[in-house]
Every structure is written in C-alpha cells, then in structure tokens.
C-alpha cells in the first residue's frame, strides 16, 4: 500500500470537493434562476467533462496551464514555477473535471424548491440573497450532500486528467489510481489489488453515506 499516494489523493479530493461547493453553488444558482436565452450553452459546457475522454480534457488543461499560455505565465510570474505537473495544477484540472458532479445535483436541488416559498419569503421582507440562504439552501440539503460526495468520490478515482496534467511525480502528483496503474505495469498484482480494494471500499462507503443520509423513509413501494 502506497500511503503517500493515498493521502495525496484524499487531500486532493477534500480540497477539490470543498472548492466545488464554493464555486458550484453560485454556478448552480445562476443555471437554475437565470432567464438568459443562451443559458443552455453554459449548461452544455458545464456538462462536457461527463462525456469528454479525460485525456482530451487533460490535454486542454495542460495547454492552458503550460508556460506558453497567459494563465501559465501569470502563475509563473506570481510563484516562480509553472502550474503544469504541480499539485496546484492537479487541483485546477480536477475542479474542471468534477464540476458537473457538483453543479448538477446542486442545481437539481435548487430547482426542486417550490417557487411559491420564494415568493412568500420576498413578501416577508427577505432579500433574494437571504431567501437563498434561509430557504433554498436548507431545502436543497440532499442535493448539496450528493454534489459534495459525488465530486469527492469522482476526484478520488480520476486517472486520465491527473496523468496528463500532473504527470506521475511521487508525493506531488502521484495519486492512487496512477499508483495502481504503475503496479500493474510492474506486474505487482498483489499491491495493485490491495490499493484497488481500498479505493473500491472507500467509494462504496461514500456512496452509502450519501444514500443513507438522503434516504426517504416515507418512499412508497413500487407501483403495482
């Protein structure tokens, strides 16, 4: 078991899914309530990582972060090193890669909130921001939990983007999924199996936790 890789991965997943709560809530809010006619294009862009091969996504992120791109140069002037093949670069790539897994459950939660409650809140003197915090967020709790857990689990298991953007630097960008790949390449099946098992169990636990919290005890039986 490669513990440095394990903890690196957990650290990455915690940072990415937490940042996605901060970024995802405003994005989901905009996607839910905006009346802009071209909104569907933004919807499509947000959903792209679900369908794109991770290598394609990783390739473009690498290009965008490299020292030839404005973002890469700006970062270099700020910190003295490039974004590509660093942990920070990995975070950015993972944010984009897992964005839909946070935004879509958030947006589904927001749009499930009865709009009449928002009207009532306004007539009780509460500003749109307060209404969002006091009514929409609490009532979308399960969507928020789902989005957080899915983006966490998705980051935990990513491979293609990490390999493209981060390379395979032990302690910096080597995550467990890459570690598993390395072990298999080196024919160390027992070690690969152990790590894979840890990832499997961890993912299962996270999903069970989500579905357990969101369990609806009053769900009706199958329709007969």
């Amino acid at each position: 078991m490669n513990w440095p890789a394990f903890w690196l991965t957990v650290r990455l997943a915690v940072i990415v899914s937490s940042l996605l709560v901060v970024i995802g809530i405003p994005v989901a809010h905009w996607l839910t309530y905006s009346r802009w006619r071209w909104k569907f294009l933004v919807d499509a862009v947000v959903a792209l990582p679900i369908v794109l091969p991770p290598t394609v996504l990783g390739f473009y992120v690498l290009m965008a972060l490299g020292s030839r791109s404005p973002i890469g140069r700006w970062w270099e002037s700020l910190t003295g090193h490039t974004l590509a093949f660093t942990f920070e670069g990995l975070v950015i790539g993972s944010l984009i890669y897992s964005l839909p897994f946070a935004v879509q459950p958030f947006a589904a939660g927001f749009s499930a909130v009865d709009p009449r409650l928002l009207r009532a809140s306004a007539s009780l003197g509460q500003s749109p921001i307060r209404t969002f915090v006091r009514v929409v967020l609490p009532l979308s709790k399960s969507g928020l939990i789902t989005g957080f857990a899915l983006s966490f689990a998705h980051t935990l298991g990513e491979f293609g983007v990490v390999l493209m953007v981060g390379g395979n630097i032990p302690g910096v960008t080597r995550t467990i999924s890459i570690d598993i790949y390395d072990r298999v390449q080196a024919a160390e099946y027992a070690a690969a199996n152990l790590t894979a098992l840890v990832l499997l169990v961890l993912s299962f636990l996270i999903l069970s936790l989500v579905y357990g919290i969101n369990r609806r005890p009053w769900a009706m039986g199958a329709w007969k």
Partner: protein
Amino acid sequence: MSEAAPASSRSSDLEVRIRKRYPHPEGTFHLNVHFRAKPGFTILFGASGAGKTTILDSIAGLDGPDEGRISIGGEDFVDSEKKVNVPAWKRRIGYVLQDLALFPHLTAEQNVAYGIYDLPFADRRRRSREILRTFRVEQLHGRHISEISGGERQRVALARTLITEPRALLLDEPLAALDRRAKSHIVDDLRAWNRAHNVPILYVTHSREEVFALGEQVIVLDAGRIVAQGPPHEVMRAPQLETVAQLSGVENLFDAVVIGIHEDRGTMTCRVNRGPVELETPLVHAKIGSKLRLGIRAGDLLLAIETPRGLSARNVIPGKIHKLEQRDVIVSALVDCSGTEFEAHLTLAARESLSLSEGRKVWIVVKTYSCHLMSA
C-alpha cells in the same frame, strides 16, 4: 367602519392603477383596473380568471404591471412613468398566498418569526409567541408544518404575515379550505388585529357568502375590469349588470323584450325568451321593443300545485316539473313553462308537503320586484 375611520387614516389608503396584458389560452388577456382601498376590508370578487390574483401579485411586487401606479399613503411602489418599481421585499406589504406557502423545513414558530429575523432572539421569541396566542395556535409552536392541520396552517400563515406589521394586507382566498365556523373565527381574529393596526386589507374570494360576511367594500371584477364597486348589499342585491348577476348566483337568466310600459303602476311587461311567457317587471329606462336581460333568483320563485288566487304577486305561470334534484338541504326544481325553463329552489319540507314529483303540473309565482333587469 371605513366611514368612521379618522381623517388621518386617508394617508394609508392603498391606491392601485394597473394595466397589463398577457397571453391567455383564449386570446390576450387585458387587465385594466383603478381603485382605492381604505383601511379595513375590501373584497375583490370575481370568477377565476378575472384577474384577482394578478392584481394582488402586482401590488405585492411579485409581478410587474405593464403600466400603472401603486401607492400606499401617497408613497409610490410602482410608477411606470417615473420608472419606479420597488422590489417586493422592500414594500412591507403582507401577502398570504392561496396555498399558504409555509416553510416545510421550519417549525410553526420559526415560520412565524421568519420575517422578523433582524430582531434579537428574545424579541423574536416573545413576539412570535404573542401572535401565535392571538391566533390561538400557541400550543403548536414546536411542530413542523407537516404535523399540523389545514386550519392551523391558515392561522400560522396569517400570523407569519401579520407579525411583520405590513402597511397593507393581501389575502388570496386564504380561508377557502375552511368550514364556515373556523372561517368566522379567523375572520373575527383578523378584525380584532386590524382594529389595532388599521391597514387596507384586500381580500380575494369567489364566495358570495364571504362578500357579505366580511366586506365593507366590494369590487367586482370580470375579465380584467371592474364592473361594479360599493357596499356589498348595494352591489350584490340588485344586480345592474349581467356579469354581477352571473357571479352572485342568479340562476335564471333570460332574454327579454319590452312589450308594454305601465308608468302608472311603475311596471313593464316583458316577453321572455320570445314568448309565450310574459312577466311583469319593475319599470326601468327602456322603450317598447328594447332588448334586455332578465334575472330571477331560484330562491325567489314560489311553486303552487293549484291555480293560486288572491295573490299580490303579478306573475303566475303554468308549467310542468321537468326535473327534481336534491342538493344538500335544498331541492332544485326545473319547471318547463311552454318552452321556457325556470329553476326554483325549495326546502325539503316544501317538497314533502306538496308531494312534488317529476312530471307534475305546477304554477310558478314571481313577484314583480324579484325580476332584475340588465342591459343586454
């Protein structure tokens, strides 16, 4: 009560002038109203689709009129000319929505305290307990909305709005789901509250009963326009216009042509539905040959099983019972009089004692002043 209100209360009148058009399944809908509501109850009465809820939404700021002006005590919330449009949450207008829209994730007390979030906790608690007591639901404070009954929800919704001390109160059929007793209790509580606050209360309903029970003023709406306005007994008792008649429960509506004018008696003779039935009606401003509409309430018709004699009523028409139907505690009889069908309402006891049945020959008796004439 509105007449007795002190002159200073004029300053809190709600004045509404709204024009709005929007697409509707049956063509474009035009809303065009202008009225002033004094402190106290003003009823907005009309069939569904008449524009009542749109008016309330516009006043509350949840919907914008195309053009118009809305103000309370001279302070504008909407003025399309000056491009004023105060957002809903800054208007301090209380609005109890038809479906109440209580917050499901909060308790009754948290719901009530929702609009006074800026006060310190102790004040919030004191005031919310106080108003829950006023509306007799203080025992529910810790319960969630899903755990309380329909009538209790209505009270919590009212309390939640009133605690914010609104400058005007909009009620969209808030009592529609309640039985009569529960309704009159809440109305008493509301009146008591308003004796202390004295704000304009716009109350939307399509129940005739509520108009008489609550209204100091009633505004009758039809298809986006005000068709009548005034104290309920004036507006509702003597319908001047067909729409009012239809809405206020006149079951018999006929086309009528004036065929005789008897100025000496103050009456006219009208032929109903091209005859042969003729009725003596009150005299209105009309000429021989004028086409009018004639309305008679089913409850104003008498039925006789023998030729009636010695009556003051001027209209006695033979006919045959074509259908007899019991509805709750009244019996509705459809009587065919040579092709013109009248609907009469009787008590159960009357049906028994006359042993009425379908096919029976009867006489309909109509007092002259039970005939209401309207322009066609």
